[in-house]
């Protein structure tokens, strides 16, 4: 029964190496909540930009006629991981969680696992 702010705090506090996290509506590209970030990582800009990533992937899947859903998208940079997790709950359609991680401090498998837990606690 977490509220969105608590879910974002949970993500920042419990996931090793978390730099920033955002909950994004990919219909409009608006961040419904953000936590963390820095001068070099504006989470509102990241929210709008990554909406295009999600839309492009959904479109590519459709052109390939793949009848499936995206669970998550991992983008590996030199020094960071960016993880996008699409929410699946009944009220959460059209939303994704966006998590930026410091590659040196992050445990990717654990981060994916914890993001899945946070999604289920958000109960959307």
């Amino acid at each position, binding site marked *: 029964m977490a509220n969105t702010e608590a879910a974002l705090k949970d993500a920042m506090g419990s996931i090793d190496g978390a730099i920033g996290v955002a*909950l994004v509506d990919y219909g*409009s*590209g608006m961040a419904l909540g953000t936590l963390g970030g820095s001068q070099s990582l504006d989470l509102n800009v990241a929210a709008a930009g990554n909406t295009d990533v999600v*839309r492009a992937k959904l479109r590519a899947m*459709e052109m390939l006629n793949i009848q499936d859903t995206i669970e998550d998208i991992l983008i590996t940079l030199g020094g960071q991981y960016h993880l996008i997790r699409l929410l699946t709950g009944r009220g959460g359609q059209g939303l994704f969680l966006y998590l930026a991680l410091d590659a040196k401090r992050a445990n990717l498998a654990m981060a994916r696992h914890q993001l899945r837990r946070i999604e289920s606690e958000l109960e959307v």
Partner: protein
Amino acid sequence: MTAAAPGTGPASSPLARLAAEGATGALHGHAGALYLADGAVVHAESPVVPDVGRRLTAGGRLSAEAWEEAVAEGGPDYRAGRFLVEHGRLSRGELELCHLSALFDAAFFVLFPPDSSQRAPERFLKEARHWLGPVRPVPVPLLQRELRRRGDLLRRAWPWPEVDTAPVVPVPGAVPAGAPGAGPTCGRRAVLQAADGVRTPVQIARALGRSAFTTLLDVRRLAAAGLVRTPPPDTGPGAGPQARTPLPARTPAATVEVSLLYRIRDALEAL
């Protein structure tokens, strides 16, 4: 002609003033109302935008009875939202997300009504509160920044606002049966299927119980892709010689060329 571009019109000034005063009450007009508490926006409603109840019941998340009960029991004390959470109908997170989506959606249509016969609200009812109760207040500068971004998104998708208020007319034969690419996952196919040549974008949004802004954006993208018709400017019943602001003449040939360029750009971007 067209509504003032978000952020540039006079629409934002009464709101900015009320925010600076830390006002509590409802700023209202024909296009809807914004509710403020201590200078922050706590609720927005527009008759053309699906509200929180419509969103929750259209997708089957709540029964109409559960919603009605919350309004009847919690409404008189301005706490219908809290009633839903306390009685286990919704999680706190679900209520927040649904409410925020509805708030930004409605605020766009209240402050920048696509229907040019409507104006942004100027009347302020002091101390008015909404029966849903506070959920998550939105600071006015944040709201204005987001609405400007949304206006830019619409213009970038297809810069002819005529498609926002006209019936959505699919171009015959533009989508071969079973053709990929229209994107049901992005909602555009649902919009296209609901387009019967009579409904306008906001009527489609209401029928589908989804965001009116997202539906506008989908319609503009469909128009850019050549899948729905873009009405020629200045031919609506309200337009004509008596139109108040004369636009620079745009010849049909020029319109076609520009629209072709947009389509080429979109096709290149989609590669």
